[in-house]
Protein backbone atom coordinates (compact mmCIF):
# COMPACT_ATOMS: atom_id res chain seq x y z
CA UNK A 1 0.00 0.00 0.00
CA UNK A 2 2.79 2.46 0.86
CA UNK A 3 4.45 1.64 -2.43
CA UNK A 4 1.14 2.30 -4.17
CA UNK A 5 0.86 5.77 -2.63
CA UNK A 6 4.49 6.56 -3.39
CA UNK A 7 3.98 5.54 -7.00
CA UNK A 8 0.96 7.82 -7.25
CA UNK A 9 2.86 10.80 -5.86
CA UNK A 10 5.85 10.30 -8.11
CA UNK A 11 3.42 9.77 -10.98
CA UNK A 12 1.84 13.12 -10.16
CA UNK A 13 5.30 14.70 -10.24
CA UNK A 14 6.16 13.43 -13.71
CA UNK A 15 2.53 14.04 -14.68
CA UNK A 16 2.94 17.66 -13.61
CA UNK A 17 5.79 18.04 -16.07
CA UNK A 18 3.76 16.40 -18.85
CA UNK A 19 0.86 18.66 -17.94
CA UNK A 20 2.97 21.83 -18.29
CA UNK A 21 4.32 20.85 -21.69
CA UNK A 22 0.90 19.59 -22.80
CA UNK A 23 -0.58 22.92 -21.75
CA UNK A 24 2.02 24.70 -23.87
CA UNK A 25 1.10 22.51 -26.84
CA UNK A 26 -2.62 23.08 -26.31
CA UNK A 27 -2.20 26.88 -26.01
CA UNK A 28 -0.55 27.02 -29.41
CA UNK A 29 -2.89 24.50 -30.99
CA UNK A 30 -5.97 26.30 -29.73
CA UNK A 31 -4.95 29.67 -31.05
CA UNK A 32 -3.35 28.67 -34.35
CA UNK A 33 -4.43 25.12 -35.10
CA UNK A 34 -0.78 24.04 -35.25
CA UNK A 35 1.00 21.37 -33.27
CA UNK A 36 4.41 22.63 -32.27
CA UNK A 37 6.75 19.69 -32.57
CA UNK A 38 9.63 21.87 -31.38
CA UNK A 39 8.01 22.47 -27.98
CA UNK A 40 10.17 19.84 -26.28
CA UNK A 41 13.40 21.14 -27.77
CA UNK A 42 12.49 24.69 -26.77
CA UNK A 43 12.09 23.45 -23.21
CA UNK A 44 15.48 21.73 -23.37
CA UNK A 45 17.06 24.94 -24.62
CA UNK A 46 15.52 26.81 -21.68
CA UNK A 47 16.89 24.23 -19.27
CA UNK A 48 20.33 24.68 -20.80
CA UNK A 49 20.07 28.45 -20.36
CA UNK A 50 19.15 27.96 -16.70
CA UNK A 51 22.04 25.53 -16.26
CA UNK A 52 24.48 28.02 -17.79
CA UNK A 53 23.30 30.82 -15.48
CA UNK A 54 23.72 28.54 -12.47
CA UNK A 55 27.10 27.49 -13.79
CA UNK A 56 28.06 31.17 -13.64
CA UNK A 57 27.27 31.25 -9.97
CA UNK A 58 23.62 32.31 -9.96
CA UNK A 59 21.39 30.78 -7.34
CA UNK A 60 18.58 28.56 -8.62
CA UNK A 61 15.55 30.81 -8.22
CA UNK A 62 17.01 33.97 -9.84
CA UNK A 63 18.36 31.81 -12.66
CA UNK A 64 14.93 30.20 -13.02
CA UNK A 65 13.22 33.60 -13.16
CA UNK A 66 15.67 34.91 -15.76
CA UNK A 67 15.20 31.74 -17.80
CA UNK A 68 11.44 32.16 -17.82
CA UNK A 69 11.79 35.74 -18.98
CA UNK A 70 14.27 34.84 -21.70
CA UNK A 71 12.09 31.95 -22.83
CA UNK A 72 9.07 34.22 -23.04
CA UNK A 73 10.87 36.67 -25.31
CA UNK A 74 12.40 33.79 -27.23
CA UNK A 75 8.96 32.38 -27.90
CA UNK A 76 7.56 35.74 -28.99
CA UNK A 77 10.53 36.31 -31.30
CA UNK A 78 10.28 32.84 -32.78
CA UNK A 79 6.63 33.37 -33.61
CA UNK A 80 7.22 36.78 -35.12
CA UNK A 81 10.27 35.85 -37.17
CA UNK A 82 9.70 32.26 -38.22
CA UNK A 83 6.04 31.35 -37.86
CA UNK A 84 4.21 34.51 -38.84
CA UNK A 85 5.42 34.62 -42.46
CA UNK A 86 3.81 31.27 -43.26
CA UNK A 87 0.95 31.43 -40.78
CA UNK A 88 -1.73 31.50 -43.42
CA UNK A 89 -0.12 28.85 -45.60
CA UNK A 90 -1.03 25.18 -45.67
CA UNK A 91 -0.99 23.34 -42.35
CA UNK A 92 1.56 20.73 -43.40
CA UNK A 93 3.99 23.53 -44.20
CA UNK A 94 3.82 24.84 -40.64
CA UNK A 95 4.18 21.34 -39.20
CA UNK A 96 7.29 20.82 -41.30
CA UNK A 97 8.60 24.18 -40.13
CA UNK A 98 8.25 23.18 -36.47
CA UNK A 99 10.03 19.91 -37.31
CA UNK A 100 12.79 22.03 -38.80
CA UNK A 101 12.90 24.06 -35.58
CA UNK A 102 13.14 20.82 -33.60
CA UNK A 103 16.18 19.74 -35.60
CA UNK A 104 17.73 23.22 -35.51
CA UNK A 105 17.36 23.73 -31.76
CA UNK A 106 18.59 20.21 -31.06
CA UNK A 107 21.63 20.93 -33.21
CA UNK A 108 22.17 24.28 -31.50
CA UNK A 109 22.12 22.61 -28.06
CA UNK A 110 24.63 20.00 -29.14
CA UNK A 111 26.80 22.66 -30.77
CA UNK A 112 26.93 24.92 -27.71
CA UNK A 113 26.76 22.49 -24.81
CA UNK A 114 27.84 19.17 -26.34
CA UNK A 115 25.99 15.88 -26.22
CA UNK A 116 27.22 14.64 -22.83
CA UNK A 117 24.59 14.46 -20.09
CA UNK A 118 24.99 17.12 -17.40
CA UNK A 119 23.99 16.94 -13.78
CA UNK A 120 21.39 19.59 -13.03
CA UNK A 121 21.07 20.55 -9.38
CA UNK A 122 17.45 21.43 -8.83
CA UNK A 123 16.10 23.49 -5.94
CA UNK A 124 14.64 20.49 -4.16
CA UNK A 125 16.64 17.77 -2.48
CA UNK A 126 15.86 14.16 -3.21
CA UNK A 127 15.71 13.47 0.52
CA UNK A 128 12.50 11.77 1.64
CA UNK A 129 9.83 13.24 3.88
CA UNK A 130 7.97 10.70 5.97
CA UNK A 131 4.24 11.09 6.38
CA UNK A 132 2.64 8.26 8.34
CA UNK A 133 5.03 5.59 7.19
CA UNK A 134 5.03 6.69 3.56
CA UNK A 135 8.19 8.33 2.24
CA UNK A 136 7.76 11.05 -0.38
CA UNK A 137 10.69 12.60 -2.18
CA UNK A 138 10.94 16.35 -1.61
CA UNK A 139 11.75 16.73 -5.27
CA UNK A 140 8.48 15.12 -6.33
CA UNK A 141 6.45 17.31 -3.99
CA UNK A 142 8.35 20.41 -5.12
CA UNK A 143 7.74 19.67 -8.78
CA UNK A 144 4.05 19.13 -8.12
CA UNK A 145 3.87 22.44 -6.25
CA UNK A 146 5.67 24.38 -8.99
CA UNK A 147 3.48 22.82 -11.68
CA UNK A 148 0.35 23.72 -9.74
CA UNK A 149 1.47 27.32 -9.25
CA UNK A 150 2.29 27.65 -12.95
CA UNK A 151 -1.07 26.20 -13.99
CA UNK A 152 -3.00 28.42 -11.57
CA UNK A 153 -1.14 31.54 -12.73
CA UNK A 154 -1.77 30.75 -16.40
CA UNK A 155 -5.40 29.96 -15.60
CA UNK A 156 -5.78 33.26 -13.78
CA UNK A 157 -4.15 35.14 -16.65
CA UNK A 158 -6.59 33.65 -19.12
CA UNK A 159 -9.78 33.92 -17.12
CA UNK A 160 -9.28 36.92 -14.84
CA UNK A 161 -7.49 39.53 -16.89
CA UNK A 162 -8.32 41.71 -19.85
CA UNK A 163 -5.24 40.42 -21.63
CA UNK A 164 -6.44 36.85 -21.15
CA UNK A 165 -9.80 37.78 -22.61
CA UNK A 166 -7.99 39.16 -25.65
CA UNK A 167 -5.90 36.00 -25.94
CA UNK A 168 -9.00 33.82 -25.81
CA UNK A 169 -10.90 35.98 -28.25
CA UNK A 170 -8.01 35.91 -30.72
CA UNK A 171 -7.92 32.13 -30.45
CA UNK A 172 -11.64 31.54 -30.82
CA UNK A 173 -12.41 33.95 -33.63
CA UNK A 174 -9.51 35.97 -34.99
CA UNK A 175 -11.54 37.94 -37.51
CA UNK A 176 -14.17 39.19 -35.09
CA UNK A 177 -11.54 39.76 -32.42
CA UNK A 178 -9.73 42.08 -34.76
CA UNK A 179 -13.00 43.90 -35.52
CA UNK A 180 -13.46 44.74 -31.86
CA UNK A 181 -9.94 46.11 -31.63
CA UNK A 182 -7.86 43.22 -30.36
CA UNK A 183 -4.38 43.08 -31.83
CA UNK A 184 -4.61 39.48 -33.00
CA UNK A 185 -1.05 39.24 -34.32
CA UNK A 186 0.34 40.42 -30.98
CA UNK A 187 -1.90 37.94 -29.16
CA UNK A 188 -0.60 35.04 -31.25
CA UNK A 189 3.00 36.04 -30.53
CA UNK A 190 2.12 36.37 -26.86
CA UNK A 191 0.62 32.87 -26.97
CA UNK A 192 3.90 31.47 -28.26
CA UNK A 193 5.74 33.39 -25.54
CA UNK A 194 3.51 31.92 -22.83
CA UNK A 195 3.88 28.44 -24.30
CA UNK A 196 7.66 28.81 -24.34
CA UNK A 197 7.55 29.94 -20.70
CA UNK A 198 5.46 26.96 -19.65
CA UNK A 199 7.84 24.72 -21.56
CA UNK A 200 10.76 26.32 -19.72
CA UNK A 201 9.15 25.48 -16.38
CA UNK A 202 8.69 21.89 -17.57
CA UNK A 203 12.25 21.65 -18.87
CA UNK A 204 13.87 23.04 -15.72
CA UNK A 205 11.70 20.87 -13.49
CA UNK A 206 12.46 17.76 -15.55
CA UNK A 207 16.22 18.35 -15.79
CA UNK A 208 17.25 17.25 -12.26
CA UNK A 209 15.74 13.80 -12.63
CA UNK A 210 16.41 13.21 -16.34
CA UNK A 211 19.95 14.68 -16.64
CA UNK A 212 20.43 17.53 -19.02
CA UNK A 213 21.32 16.63 -22.60
CA UNK A 214 20.04 17.76 -26.01
CA UNK A 215 17.55 14.89 -26.38
CA UNK A 216 16.26 15.21 -22.83
CA UNK A 217 12.71 16.27 -23.67
CA UNK A 218 12.16 14.01 -26.66
CA UNK A 219 10.37 11.30 -24.72
CA UNK A 220 8.72 13.88 -22.46
CA UNK A 221 7.33 15.49 -25.62
CA UNK A 222 5.68 12.22 -26.59
CA UNK A 223 4.18 11.84 -23.10
CA UNK A 224 2.92 15.41 -23.35
CA UNK A 225 1.37 14.75 -26.73
CA UNK A 226 -0.36 11.76 -25.17
CA UNK A 227 -1.53 13.95 -22.29
CA UNK A 228 -2.80 16.66 -24.63
CA UNK A 229 -4.60 14.15 -26.84
CA UNK A 230 -6.07 12.40 -23.82
CA UNK A 231 -7.42 15.63 -22.40
CA UNK A 232 -8.51 17.01 -25.75
CA UNK A 233 -6.22 19.12 -27.93
CA UNK A 234 -8.28 22.25 -27.41
CA UNK A 235 -8.86 22.05 -23.70
CA UNK A 236 -6.33 23.60 -21.28
CA UNK A 237 -8.02 21.89 -18.34
CA UNK A 238 -7.91 18.67 -20.32
CA UNK A 239 -4.16 19.05 -20.83
CA UNK A 240 -3.56 19.40 -17.10
CA UNK A 241 -5.87 16.56 -16.12
CA UNK A 242 -4.54 14.42 -18.98
CA UNK A 243 -0.95 15.04 -17.90
CA UNK A 244 -1.56 14.10 -14.28
CA UNK A 245 -3.67 11.07 -15.24
CA UNK A 246 -1.04 9.87 -17.67
CA UNK A 247 1.80 10.33 -15.18
CA UNK A 248 -0.01 8.27 -12.57
CA UNK A 249 -1.22 5.69 -15.08
CA UNK A 250 2.24 5.12 -16.56
CA UNK A 251 3.78 4.79 -13.10
CA UNK A 252 1.19 2.29 -11.91
CA UNK A 253 1.31 0.27 -15.12
CA UNK A 254 5.11 0.31 -15.03
CA UNK A 255 5.17 -0.91 -11.45
CA UNK A 256 2.43 -3.48 -11.43
CA UNK A 257 2.27 -4.85 -14.97
CA UNK A 258 5.57 -6.62 -15.25
CA UNK A 259 5.35 -7.39 -18.92
CA UNK A 260 5.27 -3.67 -19.63
CA UNK A 261 7.67 -2.54 -16.90
CA UNK A 262 9.89 0.42 -17.68
CA UNK A 263 10.70 -0.74 -21.19
CA UNK A 264 7.27 -0.29 -22.73
CA UNK A 265 6.40 2.97 -20.94
CA UNK A 266 6.75 4.92 -24.15
CA UNK A 267 4.77 2.31 -26.06
CA UNK A 268 1.96 2.68 -23.51
CA UNK A 269 1.88 6.41 -24.16
CA UNK A 270 1.71 5.73 -27.90
CA UNK A 271 -1.14 3.31 -27.29
CA UNK A 272 -2.96 6.09 -25.43
CA UNK A 273 -2.41 8.49 -28.35
CA UNK A 274 -3.60 6.01 -30.97
CA UNK A 275 -6.48 4.74 -28.85
CA UNK A 276 -7.85 8.19 -28.10
CA UNK A 277 -7.37 9.47 -31.65
CA UNK A 278 -9.15 6.51 -33.16
CA UNK A 279 -11.95 6.09 -30.62
CA UNK A 280 -12.63 9.56 -29.29
CA UNK A 281 -10.57 12.16 -31.17
CA UNK A 282 -11.90 15.02 -29.06
CA UNK A 283 -10.37 13.52 -25.92
CA UNK A 284 -11.88 13.71 -22.46
CA UNK A 285 -12.61 17.44 -22.37
CA UNK A 286 -12.40 18.64 -25.94
CA UNK A 287 -15.36 19.68 -27.99
CA UNK A 288 -16.17 17.51 -30.97
CA UNK A 289 -15.13 19.40 -34.04
CA UNK A 290 -17.80 19.48 -36.68
CA UNK A 291 -16.93 19.98 -40.25
CA UNK A 292 -18.84 20.23 -43.42
CA UNK A 293 -18.11 17.10 -45.41
Amino acid at each position, binding site marked *: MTNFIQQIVSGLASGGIYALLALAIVLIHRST*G*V*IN*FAQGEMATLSAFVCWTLMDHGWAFWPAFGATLLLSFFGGVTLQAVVIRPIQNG*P*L*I*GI*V*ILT*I*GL*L*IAINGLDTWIWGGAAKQFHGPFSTAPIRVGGVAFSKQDLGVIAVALVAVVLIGALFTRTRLGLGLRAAAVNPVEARLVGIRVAAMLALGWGLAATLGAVAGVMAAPSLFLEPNMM*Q*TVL*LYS*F*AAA*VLGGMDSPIGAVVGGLLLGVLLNLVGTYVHWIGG*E*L*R*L*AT*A*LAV*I*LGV*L*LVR*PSGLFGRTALRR*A
Partner: protein
Amino acid sequence: MRVKLIAFVIGVLVLIVLPFVLTDFRTVQLATVGAYFIAILGLDVLTGHSGQISLGHGAFMAVGAYTTAILMANHGVRDLWTIPIAAVVAGVIGLLAGVPALRLSGLYLALATFGIAVVLPTILKKFDHFTGGSTGITLFGKPTQTGHGAGIWGMTNNQWLYALTWTIGTVVFLIAWWLLDSRFGRSLRAIRDSELAATASGVNRAKYKVLAFGVSAAFAGVGGALFAINVAYVAPDTFPIQLSLYLLVGAVVGFFGSIWEPCSVRC
Protein backbone atom coordinates in the same frame (compact mmCIF):
# COMPACT_ATOMS: atom_id res chain seq x y z
CA MET B 1 8.73 15.08 -71.42
CA ARG B 2 11.86 15.31 -73.52
CA VAL B 3 13.57 17.49 -70.91
CA LYS B 4 12.73 14.90 -68.25
CA LEU B 5 14.14 12.10 -70.38
CA ILE B 6 17.37 14.00 -70.99
CA ALA B 7 17.67 14.80 -67.28
CA PHE B 8 17.10 11.14 -66.46
CA VAL B 9 19.73 9.96 -68.93
CA ILE B 10 22.27 12.48 -67.60
CA GLY B 11 21.48 11.36 -64.05
CA VAL B 12 22.07 7.73 -64.93
CA LEU B 13 25.34 8.58 -66.72
CA VAL B 14 26.59 10.48 -63.68
CA LEU B 15 25.71 7.50 -61.48
CA ILE B 16 27.69 5.18 -63.78
CA VAL B 17 30.75 7.45 -63.92
CA LEU B 18 30.92 8.34 -60.21
CA PRO B 19 32.44 5.11 -58.83
CA PHE B 20 35.31 5.41 -61.29
CA VAL B 21 36.13 8.88 -60.00
CA LEU B 22 35.53 8.44 -56.28
CA THR B 23 37.45 6.56 -53.62
CA ASP B 24 36.18 3.22 -52.41
CA PHE B 25 34.95 4.77 -49.16
CA ARG B 26 32.97 7.51 -50.91
CA THR B 27 31.46 4.86 -53.14
CA VAL B 28 29.99 2.90 -50.26
CA GLN B 29 28.80 6.16 -48.68
CA LEU B 30 26.97 6.94 -51.89
CA ALA B 31 25.46 3.47 -51.80
CA THR B 32 23.91 4.35 -48.43
CA VAL B 33 22.70 7.61 -49.94
CA GLY B 34 20.95 5.43 -52.52
CA ALA B 35 19.09 3.59 -49.76
CA TYR B 36 17.85 6.91 -48.35
CA PHE B 37 16.98 8.07 -51.88
CA ILE B 38 14.60 5.13 -52.29
CA ALA B 39 12.96 5.71 -48.91
CA ILE B 40 12.54 9.41 -49.67
CA LEU B 41 10.94 8.55 -53.02
CA GLY B 42 8.44 6.55 -51.02
CA LEU B 43 7.79 9.42 -48.64
CA ASP B 44 7.28 11.70 -51.63
CA VAL B 45 4.53 9.42 -52.95
CA LEU B 46 2.78 9.54 -49.59
CA THR B 47 3.27 13.08 -48.34
CA GLY B 48 4.04 14.95 -51.51
CA HIS B 49 1.39 13.40 -53.71
CA SER B 50 -1.35 12.02 -51.48
CA GLY B 51 -0.95 14.76 -48.86
CA GLN B 52 -0.73 12.37 -45.92
CA ILE B 53 2.13 13.45 -43.72
CA SER B 54 4.36 10.80 -42.20
CA LEU B 55 6.88 11.67 -39.52
CA GLY B 56 7.60 7.99 -39.01
CA HIS B 57 8.89 6.72 -42.29
CA GLY B 58 12.04 5.47 -40.61
CA ALA B 59 9.78 2.82 -39.06
CA PHE B 60 9.03 1.34 -42.49
CA MET B 61 12.74 1.43 -43.30
CA ALA B 62 13.32 -0.46 -40.07
CA VAL B 63 10.74 -3.07 -41.09
CA GLY B 64 12.57 -3.62 -44.37
CA ALA B 65 15.99 -3.65 -42.75
CA TYR B 66 14.98 -6.12 -40.05
CA THR B 67 13.24 -8.36 -42.59
CA THR B 68 16.47 -8.53 -44.56
CA ALA B 69 18.65 -8.97 -41.48
CA ILE B 70 16.55 -11.72 -39.91
CA LEU B 71 16.22 -13.63 -43.18
CA MET B 72 19.94 -13.36 -43.89
CA ALA B 73 21.19 -14.15 -40.40
CA ASN B 74 18.70 -16.78 -39.22
CA HIS B 75 17.19 -18.34 -42.31
CA GLY B 76 20.06 -18.47 -44.76
CA VAL B 77 18.35 -16.41 -47.45
CA ARG B 78 20.76 -14.72 -49.85
CA ASP B 79 20.71 -10.93 -49.50
CA LEU B 80 19.38 -10.24 -53.00
CA TRP B 81 16.25 -12.30 -52.49
CA THR B 82 15.45 -10.57 -49.21
CA ILE B 83 14.91 -7.25 -51.01
CA PRO B 84 11.58 -8.11 -52.69
CA ILE B 85 10.47 -9.87 -49.50
CA ALA B 86 11.29 -6.74 -47.49
CA ALA B 87 9.26 -4.70 -49.99
CA VAL B 88 6.26 -6.99 -49.59
CA VAL B 89 6.45 -7.14 -45.79
CA ALA B 90 6.82 -3.35 -45.44
CA GLY B 91 4.14 -2.81 -48.09
CA VAL B 92 1.62 -5.00 -46.29
CA ILE B 93 2.33 -3.26 -43.00
CA GLY B 94 1.95 0.05 -44.82
CA LEU B 95 -1.45 -0.98 -46.15
CA LEU B 96 -2.50 -2.01 -42.64
CA ALA B 97 -1.26 1.32 -41.25
CA GLY B 98 -3.09 3.17 -44.01
CA VAL B 99 -6.51 2.03 -42.84
CA PRO B 100 -6.52 3.69 -39.40
CA ALA B 101 -4.68 6.64 -40.97
CA LEU B 102 -7.85 7.34 -42.97
CA ARG B 103 -9.50 8.41 -39.76
CA LEU B 104 -6.77 10.86 -38.84
CA SER B 105 -6.68 14.27 -40.44
CA GLY B 106 -3.37 16.02 -41.23
CA LEU B 107 -2.07 17.11 -37.85
CA TYR B 108 -3.18 14.03 -35.97
CA LEU B 109 -1.59 11.76 -38.55
CA ALA B 110 1.65 13.70 -38.03
CA LEU B 111 1.29 13.19 -34.28
CA ALA B 112 0.57 9.46 -34.52
CA THR B 113 3.40 8.72 -36.96
CA PHE B 114 5.78 10.84 -34.86
CA GLY B 115 4.81 8.69 -31.87
CA ILE B 116 5.45 5.48 -33.77
CA ALA B 117 8.92 6.66 -34.76
CA VAL B 118 9.79 7.65 -31.19
CA VAL B 119 8.57 4.35 -29.76
CA LEU B 120 10.00 2.03 -32.42
CA PRO B 121 13.51 1.55 -30.91
CA THR B 122 12.06 0.59 -27.52
CA ILE B 123 9.81 -2.00 -29.16
CA LEU B 124 12.73 -3.44 -31.13
CA LYS B 125 14.64 -3.74 -27.88
CA LYS B 126 11.77 -5.38 -26.05
CA PHE B 127 11.31 -8.26 -28.49
CA ASP B 128 14.95 -9.23 -28.37
CA HIS B 129 14.56 -12.94 -29.14
CA PHE B 130 13.38 -11.85 -32.57
CA THR B 131 15.37 -8.69 -33.22
CA GLY B 132 18.56 -9.31 -31.29
CA GLY B 133 17.68 -6.57 -28.78
CA SER B 134 20.00 -3.60 -28.28
CA THR B 135 22.98 -5.44 -29.76
CA GLY B 136 21.17 -5.77 -33.06
CA ILE B 137 22.05 -8.20 -35.83
CA THR B 138 25.44 -8.29 -37.50
CA LEU B 139 25.43 -9.39 -41.12
CA PHE B 140 29.09 -8.85 -41.84
CA GLY B 141 30.80 -12.06 -42.92
CA LYS B 142 27.56 -14.02 -43.22
CA PRO B 143 27.66 -16.48 -46.13
CA THR B 144 24.39 -15.01 -47.37
CA GLN B 145 26.20 -11.77 -48.29
CA THR B 146 26.53 -11.71 -52.07
CA GLY B 147 29.32 -9.19 -52.33
CA HIS B 148 31.35 -10.53 -49.44
CA GLY B 149 35.02 -10.91 -50.23
CA ALA B 150 34.67 -9.06 -53.53
CA GLY B 151 35.10 -10.59 -56.92
CA ILE B 152 31.78 -10.13 -58.66
CA TRP B 153 32.61 -9.06 -62.19
CA GLY B 154 35.87 -7.62 -60.90
CA MET B 155 34.21 -5.14 -58.55
CA THR B 156 35.29 -4.47 -54.99
CA ASN B 157 32.69 -5.15 -52.34
CA ASN B 158 31.92 -1.45 -52.03
CA GLN B 159 31.55 -1.02 -55.77
CA TRP B 160 29.21 -3.99 -55.80
CA LEU B 161 27.06 -2.41 -53.08
CA TYR B 162 26.99 0.84 -55.03
CA ALA B 163 26.01 -0.89 -58.25
CA LEU B 164 23.31 -2.93 -56.52
CA THR B 165 21.78 0.00 -54.64
CA TRP B 166 21.73 2.42 -57.52
CA THR B 167 20.49 -0.14 -60.03
CA ILE B 168 17.55 -0.82 -57.77
CA GLY B 169 17.30 2.91 -57.06
CA THR B 170 16.98 3.61 -60.79
CA VAL B 171 14.37 0.91 -61.24
CA VAL B 172 12.38 2.21 -58.26
CA PHE B 173 12.63 5.72 -59.65
CA LEU B 174 11.22 4.54 -62.98
CA ILE B 175 8.41 2.73 -61.19
CA ALA B 176 7.62 5.88 -59.21
CA TRP B 177 7.70 7.96 -62.37
CA TRP B 178 5.32 5.61 -64.13
CA LEU B 179 3.01 5.30 -61.11
CA LEU B 180 2.77 9.01 -60.50
CA ASP B 181 2.22 9.74 -64.17
CA SER B 182 -0.65 7.28 -64.32
CA ARG B 183 -4.22 7.29 -63.09
CA PHE B 184 -2.88 6.39 -59.63
CA GLY B 185 -0.78 9.54 -59.34
CA ARG B 186 -3.50 11.79 -60.71
CA SER B 187 -5.99 10.37 -58.23
CA LEU B 188 -3.58 10.98 -55.34
CA ARG B 189 -3.04 14.60 -56.33
CA ALA B 190 -6.74 15.13 -56.80
CA ILE B 191 -7.36 13.84 -53.27
CA ARG B 192 -4.53 15.97 -51.88
CA ASP B 193 -5.86 19.14 -53.46
CA SER B 194 -9.49 18.60 -52.55
CA GLU B 195 -10.92 15.43 -51.10
CA LEU B 196 -14.40 16.70 -51.76
CA ALA B 197 -13.82 17.50 -55.41
CA ALA B 198 -11.94 14.25 -55.97
CA THR B 199 -14.71 12.17 -54.41
CA ALA B 200 -17.31 14.02 -56.42
CA SER B 201 -15.38 13.17 -59.58
CA GLY B 202 -15.52 9.50 -58.74
CA VAL B 203 -12.09 8.99 -57.19
CA ASN B 204 -12.22 6.31 -54.52
CA ARG B 205 -10.67 8.30 -51.70
CA ALA B 206 -10.16 5.50 -49.20
CA LYS B 207 -8.72 3.08 -51.74
CA TYR B 208 -6.12 5.48 -53.08
CA LYS B 209 -5.07 6.84 -49.72
CA VAL B 210 -4.50 3.34 -48.35
CA LEU B 211 -2.73 2.28 -51.56
CA ALA B 212 -0.46 5.33 -51.29
CA PHE B 213 0.52 4.18 -47.79
CA GLY B 214 1.26 0.67 -49.06
CA VAL B 215 3.35 1.78 -52.05
CA SER B 216 5.21 4.32 -49.97
CA ALA B 217 5.98 1.79 -47.25
CA ALA B 218 7.13 -0.78 -49.81
CA PHE B 219 9.62 1.77 -51.19
CA ALA B 220 10.84 2.54 -47.69
CA GLY B 221 11.13 -1.22 -47.08
CA VAL B 222 13.39 -1.58 -50.12
CA GLY B 223 15.43 1.38 -48.87
CA GLY B 224 15.71 -0.25 -45.47
CA ALA B 225 16.71 -3.61 -46.93
CA LEU B 226 19.46 -1.98 -48.99
CA PHE B 227 20.54 0.00 -45.96
CA ALA B 228 20.94 -3.22 -43.98
CA ILE B 229 22.86 -4.85 -46.83
CA ASN B 230 25.14 -1.83 -47.21
CA VAL B 231 25.91 -1.32 -43.55
CA ALA B 232 25.82 -5.08 -42.80
CA TYR B 233 24.41 -4.29 -39.36
CA VAL B 234 21.05 -3.31 -37.89
CA ALA B 235 20.25 -2.23 -34.35
CA PRO B 236 17.32 -0.39 -32.75
CA ASP B 237 19.29 2.84 -32.50
CA THR B 238 19.99 2.75 -36.25
CA PHE B 239 16.40 3.94 -36.61
CA PRO B 240 15.91 6.84 -34.19
CA ILE B 241 13.23 9.49 -34.62
CA GLN B 242 15.88 11.71 -36.22
CA LEU B 243 16.06 9.32 -39.19
CA SER B 244 12.36 9.83 -39.89
CA LEU B 245 12.68 13.58 -39.53
CA TYR B 246 15.68 13.68 -41.85
CA LEU B 247 13.74 11.65 -44.41
CA LEU B 248 11.04 14.31 -44.31
CA VAL B 249 13.64 17.05 -44.64
CA GLY B 250 15.08 15.15 -47.58
CA ALA B 251 11.66 14.95 -49.20
CA VAL B 252 10.98 18.64 -48.65
CA VAL B 253 14.36 19.82 -49.89
CA GLY B 254 14.48 17.25 -52.66
CA PHE B 255 11.31 16.93 -54.58
CA PHE B 256 8.17 17.42 -52.65
CA GLY B 257 5.03 16.74 -54.62
CA SER B 258 6.84 16.03 -57.82
CA ILE B 259 9.75 13.80 -58.48
CA TRP B 260 10.76 16.26 -61.18
CA GLU B 261 9.85 19.81 -60.39
CA PRO B 262 11.37 20.98 -57.14
CA CYS B 263 9.97 24.45 -57.71
CA SER B 264 6.38 23.31 -57.64
CA VAL B 265 6.54 22.66 -53.91
CA ARG B 266 3.05 22.19 -52.61
CA CYS B 267 2.79 20.92 -49.13
